[in-house]
């Protein structure tokens, strides 16, 4: 359902979409069933002259069956949804695969800043590439991110990845993603963070390995020069 509106560009995006579809089918079934019966009753049991309503207490077992049986079916649907939800959740938030690189992401009023590990694939070294409002990643590689907030709560959200994680001041939260296609897309701040919340937009640039290497090569001298400046 979601991929009609937003591209599906991470390894787990498809799983989240499928979970949403599963829930959509199950609740859609109940929704349509309930509304159809409801409207049928409203039309069918309209007041007619000389016809009285029936007297049904609903307390006898034979009556209660009509609400207790569907209700068990609802429980079965719940089990399916819980299993699906927990599986996806575990994959996205609990089970982090080995990273190719780690990036640092810092939210502040009202910009995202990113620290890329640079040519040596290691954060915290002299060739780290710092950018504002632009995150460069390579397609097909597993990235970890270390998410921080400098002032208030922000939320790092990349709709094409189906990824969202709040950034909490005073904490470093680790997460992961693996892009599956190239292009440039929105990074949102999804948690209200003050008057500039509405302009806190960044872009994620997902590049092919060659282009990403070229970008790193292009940025490295600038970064190194900045680091070596006395």
């Amino acid at each position, binding site marked *: 359902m979601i991929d009609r509106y*937003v591209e599906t560009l991470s390894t787990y995006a498809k799983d989240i979409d499928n979970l949403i579809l599963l829930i959509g089918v199950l609740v859609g079934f109940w929704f349509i069933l309930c509304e159809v019966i409801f409207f049928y009753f409203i039309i069918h049991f309209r007041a007619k002259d000389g016809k009285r309503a029936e007297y049904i*207490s609903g307390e006898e077992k034979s009556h209660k069956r009509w609400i207790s049986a569907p209700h068990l079916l609802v429980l079965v649907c719940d089990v399916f949804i819980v299993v699906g939800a927990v599986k996806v959740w575990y994959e996205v938030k609990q089970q982090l695969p080995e990273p190719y690189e780690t990036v640092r992401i810092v939210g502040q009023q009202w910009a995202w800043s990113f620290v890329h590990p640079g040519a040596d694939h290691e954060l915290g070294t002299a060739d780290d590439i710092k950018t504002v409002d632009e995150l460069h990643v390579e397609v097909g590689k597993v990235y970890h991110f270390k998410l921080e907030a400098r002032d208030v709560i922000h939320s790092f959200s990349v709709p094409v990845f189906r990824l969202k994680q709040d950034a909490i001041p005073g904490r470093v939260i680790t997460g992961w993603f693996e892009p599956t296609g190239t292009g440039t897309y929105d990074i949102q701040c999804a948690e209200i963070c003050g008057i500039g919340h509405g302009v806190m937009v960044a872009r994620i640039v997902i590049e092919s390995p060659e282009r990403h290497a070229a970008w790193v090569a292009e940025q490295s001298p600038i970064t190194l020069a900045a680091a070596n400046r006395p």
Partner: protein
Amino acid sequence: MAESIPADATHGHDVHHHAEQSFWSKYVFSTDHKMIAMQYMFTGMAMALIGGFMAYAFRMQLAFPGIEVPGYGTVTATDYNALVTNHGTIMIFWVAMPVLIAAFGNFLIPLMIGCDDMVFPKINRLSYQIFLLSAIVLISSFFVPGGGFGGGWTAYPPLSAKGEYNLTSLGSSLWLVAVALEFVAFLLGGINFVTTAMNARAPGMKMFDIPIVVWLIVVASILFMASVGPLIAGAVMLFMDQNIGTAFFDPDKGGDPVLWQHLFWFFGHPEVYVVLLPAMGITAEIMCVFARKKMFAYKTFIYTTFGTGVLSFTVWAHHQFVAGIDPRMANIFTVTTLLISIPIAEMCFIYIATLYGGSIRLTTPMLWALAFVAEFLIGGVTGIFLGASGADIYFHDTYFVLAHFHYTFFPIAIIGTFAGFTYWFPKMFGKMMNETLGKIHFWGTIIPFNGIFIPLFVLGGAGQHRRIYNYQHFPDLAGVEMQDLRVFATVSLIIMLAFQLVFFYNCFISWRKKEKDAGKNPWKANTLEWTAESPPPHGNWPELPTVYRGPYEYSVPGREEDYYPQNVPG
């Protein structure tokens, strides 16, 4: 528990002491539950107009970014944040709460259980006065330097805690004080509701002879009183963080901002049920009367309510799945959240089963009650997407969430209120409302309501996140198709707001009618309020009624009439 209460236990005092009163003691400093109910009702409706106007202003900005909104002016980013924050705060705390719990609770509990007033009339008066004060404090917060608070109605610190972050230090303190005062008002009201319903029932009224709406208001009051404590504590801590430099929520000094979220949502989720239950009760009353049916499985419905109430305390962290809590906690809260679907689904099935075999008259109140069920179902099923942790990663803080909770709160606060108001209007004022105007108003509200929020589901699915004053800043959200949906929603909102004029006109002409044409029992209903005069005098009945049966004995076989009032012996 199911014993009848002896007549002189609660009604031993003289009920004829209610003398004529002066204007001030009758309308302003009244202790009469019906007058306090009217005060709450009209204060709530006035606040709804303010909240609706705010929605108009910020939806105009979303549809036509940067225009001069007629009647408001340009909506800046600061204005926008203050408008959405206060729209949410007002609609929940100053509209849904006062109208559904306080107004209907005050009006209905004594009349439906057959007593002359609340057991603590002066506490009741104090409750309204504090509530009014809280509303004044909230409105004054818009006019202080810096303007109203704009940190979202959930007021997450550190944004809400520090003036340097939110730039509205006085506005946010006043906002917080107003909310805390409002809670105090409803704590006082809740004590009254529970005590009155449990202790002041008419002779003969057993526990399971109490009308469902009274039961549900009692359960809602208990939920409110049990959940609000942590939030009041949180509000005090946040106020101290704001004003005297404590650091409960300040991570730089050892505090924890996520603690506030737990305190807030531990209250915030039961709060949904606090307003939902009275609306469900109102719906149940109306459906039984206009389907001429006994409530299907009345006792099961009541037990289900208790179940919902207990479960509602165990689900709060589903608001915080991606908020930096331990990811393993999400699994537990997914299970508890989905369990809530069981009692809520059961309630919906009971509503539908109640219609079976009925003799349904589609009067205006019945249309509203049926619309409540039909629309609330949409809110209910879309909640499953958000309760399932894996799907919530995507939907959290998008317009999907926004559309979901408007599909719950709009049926609750607006449809539920119109259902109850049109149903009990004859009792409140002794006059019938105009049915044709009532139906025009109904369709003029329901159709545009869906026109507002169905597009917002689509926008949320397309990744549009909340509380952004201008989506043109986001390249992926700036497309023409998405903008068209925003315009569609805004136009629907304006149409819906315009149709509210029909409602106020209908109220006005009905209220101005010379003759009191309602009589005691215009709908041929069973519950006790319909045995009193319309409107009931101070003290309600010259002789308090005695109860002989349950509230939903409609179409009893062998009786000539298709209703059997609770107070008729036999």
